[in-house]
């Protein structure tokens, strides 16, 4: 859940739920999260098989440090409820709910999840929910969606479906979804939860992926979905803080330790006052750089 989560979500690797080879290997490529997909990647006549396969994989495979997320079919489809029945008892780290358009959608989902959890004597605070915004209506309601429940610890955007819903042509610069991206970022930031960008479809265009990731990082996304393991390092590297950022963060953190030792409320680094937001940013940078904070003590 969001409050306790220290895990990074720079990269979320989509894996089709009906591909056993990819499912069993998905966690080894260095993605922070794997996204086992029961929805768009699976043909209608393979939904049952994929559900069973994902269930068995989640039960039996070691995903190491990877966060395990399952993308469900929407509860309005004939497959959504069966997905919940099979997946919720396994308590993956998260479920991704596609085409979230309103708090009513979320309420219906969470009520059903908790009903299943009650049936299996499972807690309500372990498995989180990622709300996926893929329609204009969802963009309009994203602030309410982001703050509806503590179980929602990430908002994600589905670029392909959103452009289809808006009836626009998807362009390389993604101009058509720029407003939606920024709305989603604001909604996530307002609730201190993660926001994950849509996929970059051209798996052979490394430069294009890097450029887009630099952009979405700049406007506030905390991670990006990827569809090919070859994209993982590129995205992870963009989200990795620069050496200068790490040095600055380390300096701030050391200053804070020193101030704490000397019982100082506020302190300054290089003549600039360090307040709580600066400290929070420093911690975030050190965390992204995988630097153990206890090493400063």
């Amino acid at each position, binding site marked *: 859940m969001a409050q306790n989560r220290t895990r990074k979500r720079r990269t979320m690797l989509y894996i089709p739920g009906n591909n056993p*080879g990819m499912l*069993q*290997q998905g966690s*080894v*490529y*260095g993605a922070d999260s794997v996204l086992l997909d029961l929805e768009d990647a699976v043909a209608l006549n393979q939904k049952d098989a994929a559900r069973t396969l994902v269930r068995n994989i989640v039960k039996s*495979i*070691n995903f190491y440090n990877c966060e395990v997320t399952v993308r469900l079919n929407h509860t309005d489809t004939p497959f959504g409820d069966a997905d919940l029945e099979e997946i919720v008892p396994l308590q993956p780290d998260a479920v991704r709910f596609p085409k979230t358009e309103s708090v009513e959608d979320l309420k219906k989902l969470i009520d059903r999840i908790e009903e299943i959890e009650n049936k299996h004597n499972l807690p309500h605070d372990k498995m989180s929910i990622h709300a996926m915004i893929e329609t204009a209506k969802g963009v309009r309601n994203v602030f309410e969606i982001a703050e509806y429940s503590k179980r929602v610890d990430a908002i994600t955007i589905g670029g392909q479906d959103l452009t289809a819903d808006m009836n626009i042509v998807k362009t390389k610069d993604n101009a058509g979804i720029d407003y939606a991206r920024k709305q989603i970022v604001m909604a996530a930031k307002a609730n201190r939860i993660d926001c994950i960008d849509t996929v970059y479809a051209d798996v052979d265009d490394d430069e294009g992926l890097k450029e887009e990731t630099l952009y979405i990082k700049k406007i506030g996304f905390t991670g990006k979905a990827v569809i*090919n*393991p*070859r994209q993982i*390092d590129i995205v992870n590297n963009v989200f990795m803080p620069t050496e200068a950022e790490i040095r600055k963060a380390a300096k701030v953190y050391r200053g804070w330790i020193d101030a704490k030792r000397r019982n100082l409320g506020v302190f300054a680094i290089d003549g600039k006052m360090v307040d709580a937001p600066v400290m929070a940013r420093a911690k975030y940078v050190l965390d992204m750089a995988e630097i153990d904070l206890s090493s400063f003590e």
Partner: protein
Amino acid sequence: MINKLGKNIPEQVDGLGKLQAFQGAFEKIKKGVMEEPTVPAPNRAKMPHQSKLVDTLKEAIEKCNPKDGLTISFHHHLRGGDEVLVPVMNLLANMGIKDITLASSSLTGAHDPVVPLIENGTITRIFSSGIRNELGKAISHGKLKHPVVIHSHGGRVRDVHTGRISVDIAVIATSAADCEGNATGSHGPSAFGSLGYAAIDARYAKNVIVVTDNLVDFPCLPPSITQNFVDHVVKVDSIGDAKKIATGTTRITKSPMDLHIAKVASDAIVNSGYFKNGISFQVGAGGASLAVARFIREEMKKKEIKGSYLLGGVTSYLVDMLEEGFFDALFDVQSFDAAVSRSLYENNNHVEISGGMYANPYNCGCLTNKLDVVVLGALEIDTDFNVNVITGSDGEIRGASGGHSDTAAGANLTVVVCPSFRGRIPIVKKQVNTIVTPGETVDILVTERGLCVNPAKPELEKNLKEAGLWVRDIKELEEEVRGICGEPKKIEYTDKIVGLVEYRDGSIIDVIYEVKNKE
């Protein structure tokens, strides 16, 4: 007798005499001399201006006076495009010659048509560094009269020196040759690059036939095979299918799994302590191995490292690294694509070398002995780091020893790259089907599920752990893989030995048994 790795080795084999059990990778070599006597190279004499040109392959063979029980040798530089070996073997069969020993530096799918010749007793013994496809299947199911001997590239040179392989006729396909037999693979319509593995055959065979589809004016320059060792020269219409011999440039894999493993292997090399100015380096041509070169190249650029030499089986990617100045020299015993032939012909720092200089342990210094880092593949690897590159999960022969054990023994750092399982077949196992390369010469295994360091190298393990790499105990990895794949059904063999795996020092490291036919 039982060898050092616990394998039961026959005391002797008909036609090979007394065998030696493998005693350890360096037990024999550290003595500083080869105990077995070296056979003298044959000498011939030619009258002044005597022509060596003959009209047909048949005529050339007939001039060598073939008899039952002869040994004939070939090189495998034409790879899957070879159209010389099979016609020559068919000619011998049509002449009624029986009980032939076929000694080819390697055998590929192009050589499947010789299967009927082993079934009818034309070929009764084979020496090779690799055997695949239908031929491998036939041998694995007991079709060859005597056990096949699988040697390494370096070991083959040793086998010729000691007379274990005593070549009566060497047939050397070349892409350009002159009337005296000066010949090369570096130019001509069927250019294939280095002729490194044929050098020993030319020197030691009692009869040497140079075959070419491109007879050029005397002298053919630069000569890889020189006229003083050549008896006959034959011009044929084609030595093979140019498309299968060498085309274009080798591309780095796009397989996410191979790239992931390659990146981890590169990180391991960079943090091993051997990644510094003057590094010498060898990688294989396929899958993850070649991809390691890509990441190493990026690291060399970033860290401004300049290497000494590249070695091996050479791809165009290595040629690019030479041309870009990452290494001073490229030593080429075998070339894999067309771009390599051009470089070999034009670039003085791209040097053709013989199989002996490449990997024979019994000389004053083969190049594998000076290697810093080698990256190798594996069909299977066990928890003692022993590697199998010859038999598949069904027990059938389907691979090549090649320079695997030679480079592993010579390099300061031997890195084996492979997935921990393929499909549902475990690659990391408690015990491999067949040992080709002993674990004592392997330092690191890199898989998609982390890397394992040979316990004999604690310093290396420490370095890699400190660099933040995912270092695991190989036994723990094997257990995990078994958990995913399950326990494979045991392969059923008969008691008949169909293959001997010869270590580079001539001792026998393992044997291959006949696979039982499925009911």
